[in-house]
C-alpha cells in the first residue's frame, strides 16, 4: 500500500467576495503509483490578468501532468545530480501551460467586456493577438514525494517546504527580489529563469505548500510556519475529511481577519512516519 496521500484546500478570499471577483487560486493533489504530488497556483489579481483564475487551474493541471510522467520514468538513482532533468521538467510545465492557454484563447477570444478596463496600449496588444498569455498570469508551486526522495518547484510567491524525519525543515529556494507585493509569473517570457527547485534524497514526513495569501495573513514567518506544522499534524492524526473541513472553515475566517486574499494549502503526507 502506498503510504503517501495528498490533500488540497482552496478558499475564495474575503476581498474577492467583497468585490464580487472570482477565486483566482487553484490547488490539486494526486497519487501516481508509489509517488504522490500536490500543486497550488495563485492567479494575479490586477485587472490586466483578467483570466488568471483559469491560468491558475491550467498551471496546476499542466504541472501535475508533467510531474506524473516525470516520476514514472525517474527514481532516486536517476535524479542524483540531475539539474538538467529538472530544468527540462520546468520547460515542459511552461510549454504545457502555454499550450493550454493558446487552446483556451482560440475557443474563447477576449470579449469587449474583458478588454474594456485595460489601457489603450495593452488593449491594442491583446486585440492584435500579442501577449495573450499575460491575461492568464499566475504563480505555481508543485511538489512530488517518492519512496525515497522528494522535490519541489516554485515560480513566483508562496512557500513550499518539507518536514523531515529528523525534525529539520527544507524549503524550495525563493527569489531574493520577491519583497512586498511583487511576484514573478508563468506568463513572463523569462519564466524559466525564475523557476526554482529543490531535490532531496530520502522521503520526508510531509511536504506542505501555500499560496502567498496564507503567509501574508500572519504577523511573522514563525507564526506562519507553526500554522503549517499544525496542518500537517492534524492531517496526520485525524481523519482526512474532518481535517479538510476544519481547515476550510478556518481559512474562510482567516482570509477575513488576514490578507483578504484567496488561500490555498496543499501537500503530501507520509503515513510511514
Amino acid at each position, binding site marked *: 500500500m502506498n503510504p503517501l496521500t495528498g490533500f488540497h484546500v482552496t478558499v475564495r478570499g474575503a476581498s474577492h467576495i467583497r468585490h464580487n471577483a472570482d477565486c483566482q487560486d487553484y490547488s490539486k493533489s494526486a497519487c501516481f503509483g508509489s509517488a504522490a504530488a500536490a500543486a497550488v497556483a*495563485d492567479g494575479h489579481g490586477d485587472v490586466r490578468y483578467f483570466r488568471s483564475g483559469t491560468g491558475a487551474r491550467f498551471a496546476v493541471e499542466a504541472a501535475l501532468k508533467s510531474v506524473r510522467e516525470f516520476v514514472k520514468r525517474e527514481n532516486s538513482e536517476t535524479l542524483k545530480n540531475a539539474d538538467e532533468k529538472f530544468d527540462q521538467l520546468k520547460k515542459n510545465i511552461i510549454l504545457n501551460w502555454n499550450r493550454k492557454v493558446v487552446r483556451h484563447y482560440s475557443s474563447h477570444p477576449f470579449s469587449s467586456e474583458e478588454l474594456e478596463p485595460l489601457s489603450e496600449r495593452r488593449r491594442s496588444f491583446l486585440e492584435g493577438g500579442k501577449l495573450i498569455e499575460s491575461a492568464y498570469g499566475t504563480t505555481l508551486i508543485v511538489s512530488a514525494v517518492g519512496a525515497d526522495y522528494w522535490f519541489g518547484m516554485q515560480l513566483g510567491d508562496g512557500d513550499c517546504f518539507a518536514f523531515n524525519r529528523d525534525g529539520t525543515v527544507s524549503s524550495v529556494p525563493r527569489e531574493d*527580489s520577491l519583497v*512586498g507585493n*511583487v511576484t514573478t509569473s508563468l506568463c513572463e517570457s523569462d519564466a524559466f529563469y525564475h523557476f526554482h527547485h529543490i531535490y532531496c534524497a530520502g522521503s520526508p514526513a510531509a511536504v506542505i505548500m501555500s499560496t502567498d495569501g496564507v503567509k501574508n495573513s500572519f504577523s511573522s514567518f514563525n507564526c506562519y510556519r507553526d500554522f503549517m506544522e*499544525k496542518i500537517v499534524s492534524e492531517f496526520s492524526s485525524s481523519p482526512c475529511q474532518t481535517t479538510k473541513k476544519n481547515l476550510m472553515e478556518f481559512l474562510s475566517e482567516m482570509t477575513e481577519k488576514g*490578507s*483578504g486574499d484567496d488561500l490555498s494549502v496543499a501537500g503530501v503526507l507520509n503515513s510511514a512516519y
Partner: protein
Amino acid sequence: MLLLIERESLSMSNPFENTEGIAKRTMVLFFVVDTSGSMAGKKIGAVNDAIFNVLPEIRKISEDNADAEIKIAAITFSNGAKWLYDEPKPADEFSWPYVNADGMTDLGEAYRMLNEKLSRNAFMNDVEGSYAPAIFLMTDGEPTDDYKKELDRLNQNKWFRVAIKVAVAIGEKDDVNDEVLTEFTGTPEAVLRAHTPEALAKMIRLVSVTASKIGSQSSTVGQESRQKTFTEELNKQQQEWQPVNSADDEDEEWN
C-alpha cells in the same frame, strides 16, 4: 436551536481556532520633506497645510480598505535629517507637527536614513507580507551633500526598488534640479512640478491618495510594474485637474 448548538460545538472543536499571529497587511507611505532654508515662508507653509489636510483622506482610504492598513512615516532634511516618529504610525495616529524650514539641503543624509529603515529589521517588519512602500519626496533645491553615493546604496535596497516613488519639485525650473528628482524616482513621469502653493496642495493630495490606493492593491508582476501603474494613474488624474491647474497660473506664486 439544536442547529445553533451543533454549529457552536463544531466551531469550538476546530483545532485551528487557536492559531496565533493573524494580522492585516500593511502599506507604509513615506513623506520625505525638504526643510532647508530655501523652503522657508510660503513653501513650507503650503507643505504643512497640504499634508495636514490630506491626512483625513488617507485615514479614510485605510479604514475603507478591509485588507490592508496604511501607516505613515515621515523624515525631514536640512542640516542632517530626522524621523518624525521612531516607527511608522497607523494613519489615524499620525499627526503632522507643522515643521519649520532652515539650514542646508542634506538629501544624501535623508537617503542614508531611509535606506536604514527600509528593512525587515526596521520599518518593514509589521506583517510577513507587507506591501511595497510608497515614497514621496518634496524638495525645492539642489542637494548640498554627497547624495549620489547614498542614492546608489538606496538603489540596492530591495524595498526601495519595488517601492512606488514620486517627487514634487517645488518652484520654478531654474530653482530645482529635475535630474536629481528623476534619479530618485527612476522615471521623469513620476516627477511633478508645483508652480504655486495651490498647485502644490493639489499635488500632495493627488500623490498621497493615488499612492495609498495603488500601493495597497494585490500582487503585481515585476519590480517596475507597480511604479508604472502608479504613474499611469497619476498622469490620468493630473490631466483631469489640469484645466483647474491652468487657472492656477494666475494664483499667487512662490515669491
